[in-house]
């Protein structure tokens, strides 16, 4: 029982991390109808920027306080992501208005290649560390409930907490601020939003920025877990089933989808994996998402797809 719960908890925490990446997809898809394949590249780019800024800052300015250095590096990387978002809107999206979904998808793939190349030529292509001072040691919990207690990875716990905090912030931003309301209006109907005077272009920049910051947080957490390296870009592929499971247009869907996928992956790997040779995590997530789709083609929380001729 304790082992099962441990696996379950591990899955939930991994799921939170997936949701973090998935959130980026959902934000952009909601506001601009673009399925952003570059999200993974953005995570890599942001993490690279942050890791290198944190490394360069002490060398240049002589700062040595780790919290301060990380904070400044985070802000600088956020600034870089803002520039990236602005350039993407300016140079790509604005020129591809009214194109089909596939064309936009391909364009974001192009952006992904570009960002991967750019990030590695500016910031280098080694493995870098992001050290935001997360405790690495696992702790025991509920020792009096279960024999032996539950082994919980503190790092995962903190990461999950950060993710939850970010989600809460985003929902406040979307529900309570004027900009958030404008974003939701654009997501509902581009033309109607434009006709009441919401500037589409600015909204797109904002949304890509927010997605950039989400990517930065995701990159920071994943980067401090795994090290910042090229493989970080493939995290996006792990998050895709989460997005379609939860529904492309739903923020809560991304969270709950992430939790389902995280738990499903871990449980399948532990309890099913040994029978078929292991390593089934990746495709199991997709098959799980596929099974959900067969019942609900729009995902769990997606808007209902209505067919009209």
């Amino acid at each position: 029982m304790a082992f099962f719960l441990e696996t379950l908890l591990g899955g939930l925490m991994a799921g939170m991390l997936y949701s973090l990446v998935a959130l980026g997809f959902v934000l952009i898809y909601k506001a601009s109808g673009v399925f952003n394949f570059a999200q993974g590249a953005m995570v890599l780019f942001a993490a690279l920027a942050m890791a290198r800024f944190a490394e360069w800052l002490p060398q240049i300015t002589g700062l040595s306080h780790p919290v301060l250095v990380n904070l400044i590096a985070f802000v600088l990387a956020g600034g870089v992501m803002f520039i990236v978002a602005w350039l993407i809107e300016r140079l790509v999206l604005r020129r591809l208005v009214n194109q089909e979904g596939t064309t936009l998808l391909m364009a974001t793939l192009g952006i992904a290649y570009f960002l991967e190349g750019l990030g590695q030529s500016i910031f280098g292509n080694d493995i870098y560390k992001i050290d935001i001072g997360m405790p690495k040691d696992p702790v025991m919990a509920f020792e009096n409930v279960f024999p032996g207690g539950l082994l919980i990875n503190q790092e995962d716990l903190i990461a999950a907490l950060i993710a939850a905090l970010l989600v809460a912030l985003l929902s406040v931003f979307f529900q309570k601020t004027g900009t958030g309301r404008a974003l939701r209006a654009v997501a509902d109907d581009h033309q109607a939003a434009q006709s009441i005077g919401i500037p589409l272009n600015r909204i797109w920049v904002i949304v890509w920025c927010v997605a950039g910051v989400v990517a930065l947080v995701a990159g920071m957490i994943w980067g401090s877990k795994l090290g910042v390296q090229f493989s970080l870009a493939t995290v996006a592929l792990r998050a895709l089933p989460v997005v379609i499971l939860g529904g492309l247009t739903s923020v809560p869907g991304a969270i709950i989808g992430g939790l389902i996928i995280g738990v499903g992956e871990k449980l399948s790997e532990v309890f099913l994996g040994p029978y078929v040779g292991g390593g089934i995590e990746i495709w199991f997530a997709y098959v799980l998402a596929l099974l959900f789709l067969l019942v609900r083609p729009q995902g769990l929380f997606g808007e209902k797809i209505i067919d009209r001729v």
Partner: protein
Amino acid sequence: MFYRENGQFKTSYQADQQIFPIAQDRVFVVLLLLVAFAGVPFFASDYMFRAILIPFVIMAMAALGVNILVGYCGQISLGSGAFMAVGAYGAYNFFARVPDMPLLPALLLGGLCATAFGILFGLPSLRVRGLYLAVATLAAQFFADWMFLRVKWFTLDTPSGSVSVSNLQIFGFPLDSDVSKYLFCLSLLVVIALLAKNLVRGAIGREWMAIRDMDVAAAVIGIRPMYAKLSAFAVSSFIIGVAGALWAFIYLGSWEPGAFSVDQSFRLLFMVIIGGLGSIMGGFLGAAFIIVLPIFLNQFLPMLAGLAGVEISTTVVSHTELMIFGALIVWFLIVEPHGLAKLWAIGKQKMRVWPFPY
């Protein structure tokens, strides 16, 4: 001036129904085939064959298959790499396990394996579509990646997981020189392209296009969506499977599951979108573009840097290559979202009405 159909009168129904109704098109195709079969083998160097021509021919075939599914039937698929892998490993298993298996039937049987796999993973298309389907087809990709890595039966229990073929021959002729490999792939490509061209202009092709344009409307006028979608998956994955088998047997020789990763799927999708969705010609143009561009950049960048007097390392070259590749794709999509085939069509139309374009 030279390209117009004035004065070419059709006197029989057959003449009106032929593949290339305009005489200039027929001449052009015959000339092209002549050059490809008889001209190129004399001029091309070994490097040309190995780096450009053979990959181009095989990838054009795969792009043709992807185009049938994505361009004609409108079902976005990111699992093309998996279909290639199934074709390659299917053909390999038939080739290695069955004694005295000739090459051609092995390749076709590999294609049939891919067909079965394609129909299986095409089933979700009956329920989901669009971007959801695109992501769903990634399931096929990751499942195939895992299957050929972990299930040792498919790789004949080789410890490294890498398999190889040797001693290829077709009707008694050994396929050992680059020219013979090129000619073999080219002949298969011509046959399959002819087949595909005829399929898409026949009844089934029209059903696919109707499904692509509006599947509910198509169902209303009596097209069975299940039959149309699954047949598109079947035909497309057969062609992709044969291409995958050729890629493995002829181009790679020995390969690992990594050869058919998700990158390959993306590359194939790039080919059909840059080439032009819903056009046989587009597959060829797109394949040429995607194959030649990286090679060109690879050669051109160090030269350019040399001119500027800067010494650049190979990692910088590869990163710059990635950037230029991405930027060019975006640029292409902005300038001509309908692909190279559209440019080709515009060019032809301009020629038709020249010199009075109104």
